[in-house]
């Protein structure tokens, strides 16, 4: 190992500039939290009502409802996944989802 190698090996790699990621994430989360302060969070109610509507048509297992929210800067997405029971003959592990 030459002298130069010694210095190269000890030089730390440039750390990525993470501060801009911090700023962007803060701006998005705070934009949402500031709204939440003046309006109550409607998501739990929305979820209950949606599931109730679906339950009027099919028998669903309340434990098999998945709600995912992604808060973005320009747009947020709310994904609700309700697992519906399959036809009686194939009930069980192969139950369809949708």
């Amino acid at each position, binding site marked *: 190992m030459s002298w130069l190698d010694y210095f190269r090996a000890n030089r730390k790699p440039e750390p990525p*500039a993470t*501060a801009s990621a*911090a700023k962007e*994430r803060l*701006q998005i*989360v*705070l934009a949402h*939290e500031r709204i939440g302060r003046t309006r109550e969070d409607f998501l739990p109610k929305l979820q209950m009502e949606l599931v109730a509507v679906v339950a009027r048509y099919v028998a669903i297992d309340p434990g098999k409802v998945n709600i995912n929210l992604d808060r973005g800067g320009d747009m947020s997405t709310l994904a609700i996944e309700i697992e519906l029971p399959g036809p009686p003959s194939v009930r069980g592990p192969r139950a369809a989802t949708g």
Partner: protein
Amino acid sequence: MAQVIVVTSGKGGVGKTTTSAAIATGLAQRGKKTVVIDFDVGLRNLDLIMGVERRVVFDIVNVIQGEARLNQALIRDKRVDTLSILPASQTRDKDALTREGVATIIDQLKEDHDFILCDSPAGIEKGALLALYFADQAIVVTNPEVSSVRDSDRILGVLQSKSKRAEEKRDKVKEHLLVTRYDPNRVERGEMLKLEDIREILAIPLLGVIPENESVLRASNTGTPVIMDQESAAGQAYKDAVSRFLGEDVPHRFLEPDKKPGLFKRLFGGRAA
């Protein structure tokens, strides 16, 4: 008319007690009759930072429960004669502080003080709510770090909805941003949120920027508020902040890395530090 100032942050460990001790001492040094109250019941620490821990006899809970008079519980600072400290209780729990009790104490203190500083505990629970309830002004202590900035935003929301001024629909609590533990070297490397970013996000007037500085630990070791160390960057930065608080126009310092200016800077000039 006496002003009640809360030093608050939401997040813990960002420098509220360090700041309360420094600003209270600074205001008193400027001749203002100042009292600083520790609201961190159960986790009293202001007494240590102020160096009066051996002189505590009674505390705020004793006063509220009628076991001591306010004058007996107040500790006169030996360095600055316009300064006194009202310690928190170490043994009682937070429920020992009542809003009525605190109201009586603050009303009494208002009679013969210019400034009443309230060192808030962390969080947004009862103790923190009580510390900010009577505030006319708030110093929001923020570190250049995501969770601290978020919690500061949260506490600003609380100030605007849960303070006495908000409840009574009077003029809102006057807000001041104090960024502490700022490390210009890490900012320059892009590792730490820039001052401008924090200002843009929180959008409240800037009182000061206190650099990350070894002098703060030294000051706490000896129980001397860091503002008394005027050799140190943090001490000077706190002194500037006190001047701004009193309405003076003082430029911000310690915002640039303390290394020798590079060729580019020497040729084209950097921003004044």
